[in-house]
């Protein structure tokens, strides 16, 4: 049994916390911070340095270069680790900062590895709270801290309310109701044994638990399908020189203020940029390459952009609509045949020389977008089309099913585990109170997502459901 899943909304205990670090104006990517007594141990357990040193051997304020290794011994990312020993850190605890090399995916992976090794996901504002509690921030700053907690809590509540909307929110609430219903039956048969109540047979409750477990598993499964959205969608912009790739990129970037940072990509000297389209992070591959094609090194540019097609989830195929398409265009189109792609017909402001429909290109009408990077038209259509590509065409509407943040995902995994325990307890014909203990934890955990913290609901339900009183 896993002790981490015990639900407890607030912690005084200074256990070790971890979070993806944020600095104002910077993306929530690239850095994982760990703070607490176990910070060094946690970090060392997932880190292998190049020079053989451990983080524990480091002096405060020094850096170490190496790799993050996952549970199967595979390299997750190359990283630079920084150590600030207690009390010379923001929280006045041992703090380890892991600067990841890549985008969102490795960063979240590093975070979840930390959680696997005993760190807890930090609450909103918790680093600052610790800084205050440990005397790092002076009294005059205390109120700012309080505001922070408040606003952060509100924010996270808002996020919970907004992001967990529609189907998923309903589904989680309904799973929780199902658990409470089983609890009502179990508790009625325990505390009201003398009343001779007609409670649901144990075996049936076990089956119901099994069904709830399947539903939780489905949510977790959907979640991993949705991983692509959370971790970002890789987009390659391809096309022969001078069709307007760079102009298009600049436009997308400028239009979307949410552009946050340039980060070194996974490929050696490519650069990725992230833009958010309808809340979906788009990771534009090799923006440096795209921009460079505007300069003289044309040939390298084309080949280089084609080289990224493989990693891309979506390819934007840009053509110059004011000219006839030529062999170079068709050559590139041929190479992206198997990809999820959108044909972007640029420079429509100059009028159209070619009836693209007649060419029989492998792009449906929805995947053919006419834009003018110069006149800034058609960009909304393009974004809409990208969004549709990511979220699927109706049959796979991931948006509603994604468990948005790490915390929720962790909760669902914990819920799955306790439900399994409950089912096992019932299958082994253990007495009702054991399954009940598991289910209570499950309903408490789900309540953290749905915001239900009713304390007496099981007893209340027993009284309204059954005729009590002999």
């Amino acid at each position, binding site marked *: *049994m896993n*002790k981490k899943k*015990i639900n*407890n*909304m*607030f*912690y*005084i*205990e200074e256990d070790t916390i971890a979070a993806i670090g944020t600095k104002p104006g910077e993306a929530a990517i690239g850095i994982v911070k760990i703070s607490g007594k176990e910070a060094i141990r946690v970090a060392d357990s997932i880190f292998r340095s190049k020079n053989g040193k451990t983080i524990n051997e480091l002096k405060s304020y020094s850096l170490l270069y190496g790799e993050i290794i996952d549970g199967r011994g595979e390299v997750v990312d190359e990283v630079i680790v920084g150590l600030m020993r207690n009390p010379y850190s923001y929280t006045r605890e041992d703090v380890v900062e892991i600067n990841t090399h890549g985008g969102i995916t490795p960063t979240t992976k590093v975070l979840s590895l930390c959680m696997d090794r005993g760190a807890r996901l930090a*609450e909103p504002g918790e680093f600052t*709270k610790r800084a*205050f*509690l440990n005397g790092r921030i002076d*009294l005059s700053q*205390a*109120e700012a*801290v*309080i*505001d922070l*907690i*408040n606003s952060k*809590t509100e924010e996270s509540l808002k996020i919970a309310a907004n992001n967990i909307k529609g189907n998923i929110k309903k589904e989680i609430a309904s799973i929780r109701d199902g658990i409470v219903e089983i609890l009502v039956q179990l*508790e009625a048969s*325990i*505390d*009201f*044994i*003398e*009343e*001779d109540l007609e409670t649901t047979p144990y075996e049936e409750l076990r089956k119901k638990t099994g069904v709830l477990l399947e539903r939780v598993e489905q949510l977790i499964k959907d979640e991993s399908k949705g991983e692509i959205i959370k971790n970002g969608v890789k987009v390659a912009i391809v096309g022969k020189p001078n069709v307007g790739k760079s102009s298009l990129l600049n436009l997308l970037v400028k239009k979307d203020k949410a552009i946050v940072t340039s980060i070194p990509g996974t490929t050696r000297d490519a650069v990725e940029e992230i833009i958010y389209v309808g809340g979906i992070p788009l990771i534009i591959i090799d923006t440096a390459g795209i921009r460079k094609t505007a300069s003289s090194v044309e040939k390298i540019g084309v080949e280089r952009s084609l080289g990224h097609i493989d990693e891309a989830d979506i390819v934007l195929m840009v053509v110059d609509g004011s000219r006839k398409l030529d062999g170079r265009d068709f050559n590139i189109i041929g190479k992206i045949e198997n990809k999820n792609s959108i044909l972007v017909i640029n420079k429509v402001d100059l009028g159209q020389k070619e009836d693209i429909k007649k060419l029989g290109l492998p792009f449906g009408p929805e995947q053919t977008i006419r834009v003018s990077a110069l006149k800034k038209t058609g960009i909304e259509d393009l974004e809409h089309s990208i969004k549709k590509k990511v979220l699927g065409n109706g049959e796979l509407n991931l948006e509603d099913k994604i468990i948005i943040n790490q915390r929720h995902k962790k909760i669902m995994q914990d819920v799955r585990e306790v439900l399994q325990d409950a089912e096992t307890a019932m299958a*082994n*014909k*253990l*007495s*009702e*109170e*054991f399954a*009940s*203990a598991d289910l*209570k934890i499950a309903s408490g955990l789900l309540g953290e997502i749905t915001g239900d913290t009713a*304390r007496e609901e*099981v*007893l209340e339900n027993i*009284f309204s459901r059954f*005729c*009590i*009183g*002999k």
Partner: protein
Amino acid sequence: MYDVIVIGAGHAGCEAAFACARLKLNTLLLTINLDKVALMPCNPAIGGMGKSQLIKELDAMGGQMGKIADLAGIQFKLLNQKKGPAVQALRTQIDKKEYETLMKHLLETTDNILLKQGTVAKLLVDGIKVKGVLTEDGMQFLAKAVIITSGTFLRGRIIIGDKDYYAGRMGENPAMNLTKSLTSLGFEMDRFQTATPPRVDKRSIDFSKTIISSGDEEAGSFSFWACPKRGERANIPSFLTYTNSKTHDLIAQNIKYSPIRSGIINTHGPRHCPSIDRKVLNFPQKHKHPVFIEPEGVHTNEMYLQGLTTSMPFYLQEKIVNTVEGLEKASIIRPGYAVEYDYLIPCQLNYTLESKLIENLYFAGQINGTSGYEEAAVQGFVAGANASLKILGKKPLILTRDTSYIGVLIDDLITKDLSEPYRMYTSRAEYRLFLRSDNADLRLATLGFEAGFLEKEAHQKTLKKQQAIDSLIKLLKNITIKPQKANRYRPNLKLKEPIRLYDLFKRPQVNIGDIKYWLDHASNGYGDGVWKQAEIIIKYEGYINRQFEEIKKTKKLEKFAIPSNIDYFRFKGLTYGAQEKLSRKRPNTLGQASRIAGVSPSDISILLLNLRRK
């Protein structure tokens, strides 16, 4: 001048007085009627789910209810025998008169207790400290502490049909003036209601139409220390019958006479024992309700009709009763009735049950909005213990949710908003798997002994038991048996590898007898109780350890004391709702604060920050 004055010799008052006397404090126990000491005005039973846990804990710390109930019991039943140890409970039919007699005798023979008849009219208060009481007949008694255990007597009002009059219980005078004294001191009071069924003459019941229900021979006893031999009286049967459509029709036709309908009663009663009127109203789809016919004692013909609680007019009560099979000719010898009374909104108390408003003034029992003899008794003990410990300058006896059902009870009382009289259930205890009847002694004896309430021998016995349990578990961890040996005795185990007896014990199908067999004679010397504990600890280790983990997690919050004079409205960042709730409840600890409805986790974080800032 007394050390302590206890007002009311009910179940709370008796335990309070005993606790004070144990610490050799000069204790005055004032009660309205000396013939009604330790009366059981409602059902003739002690124990049941959640309640038996309370009594066992009380006994483990040196209280008296368990011992007397064991002696006065006339039928012992172990509830939930088929379930796990955490949710089993002992329920005992009690000879009421015997119980009263034994308890009164014990009071009268206990040093340092003076039992005296008198009705308190007024509290004497010096500033913010209580200093004594004034009785209706003008007597004045001074004391260092006062414990109010006045049950349903404060402005008690009895209702039967369309009649109502002031009375503490049927045939007893109410206490009409104490409420005024309390409210004028600033205490907030509210009203609750409870009711009791009619009693019928045994000779008028046709038992052949009922189902006989006997006790269990091996039910065990409440007390860990004194285990009296059970005589013939120990298994007197009770009987079961059911209401039917005739009963329900009659009630439905006459529902306008029911005080719950007529509006004479508009206060909340306990939902766990609704009147038959209410059951018919709320569950019209049910065609029968059980009626348990229970003896009120050995030397009386009075039979209690559990399930037929009503405060319908007297003439209708008998008609209703007579519709029930076996009770066609039953004559009521005491009608059912409802009683409405003042209770103190209990969030005005601390964990010690001392009031926040007036120092050295304690409240315990039904006056705090609880229901049940057991709930009352344990509060009496806690109030008595703390009043005495404070006088002696010793550290208070604070029971929290993670130590005991008593802790759960007190925490709920002082934290929640009561909407009905409070009854204990096992499901109220979140650490139920650990807070078991069977280990109440191991959990609490040391606490009771160190505070001075439990005798030394009893404590020694517990320590020895604990050592034996530890040593047995160690033994089982050290002995590994070959698969052949295990399979020979229990072929369905199909073991392939050697296994520790400890691990073998974890399997659901392996029982104490099996382990003893494999141990051969190494098991000699461990008593049944020790084996039982070892079995529970080993078999349910995973679950119990998880509860320990939960307890550990909340410990710091529970230990974090909040000063009583805090102005919550000064704290920036708290929501207004939380400020109001906190100001009203004035929680003793952050843990308690976190359980107040309407106080959110972020409120607690902010509270914590503010408190640490000082």
